[in-house]
């Protein structure tokens, strides 16, 4: 009985999940911390990727992440609210910020959308620096608490892993749903989608709102990780880094942003231990990926897999890996 190729991705996923669960038992605090950070950024990258399905590249998502992180921090430090309320407030504000972002940028597309979201992200950054009485200015706000089960470094890791898996499942459902197809339709041809009776503006705002929930979750987890929020969370460098994670990993896939986030975070934190030239390593990585792996690493993986398996590329199965080219064929 041959091992069915179709089910290999599922086995592979389960193996990866098992390895992820086993990570704290196999390595030390440092690697687990870096992985935690990587998975938090994976969540941010996934939120950007959701809009990427619609062909919208947002350069301001770190602003949404920062709004929810700051909302959590201010609630934690200024009120007696419990952890759950803090998280809900953070999420709520992140959602609100995302909807505002969506409303302000929905009439734009392409480069103009990039610029609009970049500007909005920087507005958030500017507010965090300037509203010193609320945000603590560039010193930020410190002394945040984590939920008690997330106090030890491996507890936080499992929390982040759990949230990420849940979000991946949610995103898989979203992208497979009619709404997800409408998003892809928006990217392919906005006019045609409109003629089919969909409202592009509504789709964009709804997508932004969903994206905002994931970015908000990333913000909350980031606040837990650092126990601290500062304006650099909202800055362009964070947004830009997240977009690069999506591109490196593969736009329009679910695995891509995660892969990209893990690679970039590990280069930043682990490669940097060996050399001060780690930005060069990152730069070379980007160049190589643009030249040889246009669809990112996930896309590269699919191409290799397709060549290796003689039955041709496997169709959309439990893995949820869908490149744009695949979708058009469907």
């Amino acid at each position, binding site marked *: 009985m041959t091992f069915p190729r179709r089910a290999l991705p599922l*086995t592979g996923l389960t193996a990866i999940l098992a390895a992820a669960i086993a990570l704290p*038992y196999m390595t030390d*605090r440092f690697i687990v911390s870096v992985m935690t950070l990587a998975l938090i950024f994976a969540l941010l990258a996934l939120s950007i990727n959701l809009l990427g399905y619609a062909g919208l590249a947002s350069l301001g998502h770190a602003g949404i992440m920062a709004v929810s992180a700051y909302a959590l921090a201010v609630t934690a430090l200024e009120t007696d609210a419990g952890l759950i309320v803090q998280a809900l407030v953070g999420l709520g504000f992140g959602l609100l910020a995302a909807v505002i972002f969506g409303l302000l940028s929905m009439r734009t597309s392409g480069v103009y959308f990039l610029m609009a979201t970049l500007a909005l992200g920087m507005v958030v950054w500017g507010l965090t620096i300037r509203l*010193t009485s609320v945000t603590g200015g560039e010193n930020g706000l410190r002394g945040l608490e984590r939920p008690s089960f997330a106090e030890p470094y491996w507890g936080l890791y499992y929390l982040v892993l759990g949230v990420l898996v849940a979000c991946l499942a949610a995103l898989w459902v979203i992208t497979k749903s009619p709404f997800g197809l409408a998003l892809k339709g928006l990217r392919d041809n906005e006019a045609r989608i409109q003629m089919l009776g969909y409202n592009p503006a509504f789709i964009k705002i709804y997508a932004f709102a969903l994206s905002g929930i994931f970015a908000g979750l990333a913000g909350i987890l980031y606040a837990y990780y650092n126990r*601290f929020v*500062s304006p*650099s969370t909202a800055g362009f460098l964070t947004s830009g880094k997240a977009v690069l994670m999506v591109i490196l990993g593969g736009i329009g896939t679910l695995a891509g942003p995660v892969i990209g986030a893990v690679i970039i975070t590990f280069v930043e934190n682990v490669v940097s*231990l060996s050399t001060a030239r780690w*930005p060069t390593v990152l730069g070379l990585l980007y160049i190589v990926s643009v030249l040889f792996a246009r669809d990112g690493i996930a896309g590269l993986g699919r191409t290799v897999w397709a060549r290796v398996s003689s039955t041709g590329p496997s169709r959309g199965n439990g893995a949820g890996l869908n490149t744009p080219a695949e979708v058009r064929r469907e």
Partner: protein
Amino acid sequence: MKRIAKSWQITAFVAVLLLVITACSSPGSDDATTTVAPGTTAPEEPGSTEAPTDTEGPTDTTVASGEPIHIGLIAPLTGPFSVVSEDLIAGWEMYWEDRGSTIVAGREIIWHAADDANDPATGITQANGLVSQQNVSMIVGPVTTAVGSAVAEEMNRQGIPVFTPVLSDDNVTQRSPLEGVVRIAGWTASQVTHVAGAWAADQGYETAATICFDLQFGYEHCGGFANTFTDGGGDVTLQLWHPIGVEDFATFVSQLSDANPDVVFVGNSGPDAVRFVQAWADFGLKDQIPLIATETTLDQTSLRGLSAEAADGLISVGHWAEGWDAPAAAAFTQAYLEREGQMPSYFAPAMYIAADWIAQAIEALDGDVSDTQALVDQIRAITLENTPFGTQSLDDRDHTNQFVHIRQVEVRDDGLLWNVPIETYEDVSQFWTYDPEEYLAQPAYSREYQGLDWP
């Protein structure tokens, strides 16, 4: 269907196996207790550490009898502040070279530099890496407050002391003290600018205008000046604030010119400082209105980028003056010049003295740094004489009293610019001559509060 069922079985088996293995043991080899005893976890063999970059100490002839002591240096090795890090690391290394040996009380000192990229999250991750992978017993650094607060809090949770000779935010040792942080060989913004304001008032200036970064850094530098200047009878008629990254200071300079004060005080750093000083000269104001700059504006990191015409003769205030003729300072400057080919900015002597401070503490403890409290207490007990900064000792809030100089830029025979003291104030505390309790009862310097009407 049967085939898929089979693969499901295999998948499930693999998953269950892994979960069973992990469930039967507990994760991690260390925990977040606050009494971690660094140095008692399995340290590496001397000389075999995977030292990042080339930061290992020089080999020496004395044999180490105990396990090495690891020290973590956290600094922005990449990014806009990287030039600061070069001076910082050079100053640290110079101490160990001058000392001739990295062995203290029978234990070899091994340091590891980590890059915080001026980002708090990276700083925290790197600090954790230094603790768990390199077994550091203490951290020296970082440079900026945001990273410093984040790292200090994380390290405090693990019982690792943090020494910050460079971080100059007022409130780290005042209104928002950080546990486990000791500012050896350190300074604060207002510590030096209080002196500037008092000196300016003494010179007979009656009106002043200030221009500083529109950030906490700027509020503290300008606040210190404004506070003591008004105490001395002066009047601050205009306060300008500029963001980081101003390309063209024309509008600011013209506003200052229109205000026509007796003296202008400027508080910024980095490329902005260079551009401001250049604009000040270009617009002809250098010869019209006296300028007093804060330490970082006319520090060597700025002077290296300025022309003699623009900078010669400018007054600034600082706890470091590379042209100071005190023997320790002069010797340090000369040695640094020979080693690096340029004049030292204050980061270098600060790290040099910090290294000396730490070495003496370790010596006094006979090499036993396992008790964090004992180490910090020993640090607090030390007074250093004849350092490049002068005599150094800590006040009861873990901050160092400093010599503060009013300096003037001069052009040396070899064409390099340096700051030479024209007046020196000794034993200046972070509270100036104010009563600490009364001072702390006032709000922190901010855009709204500059101490104009106090006391």
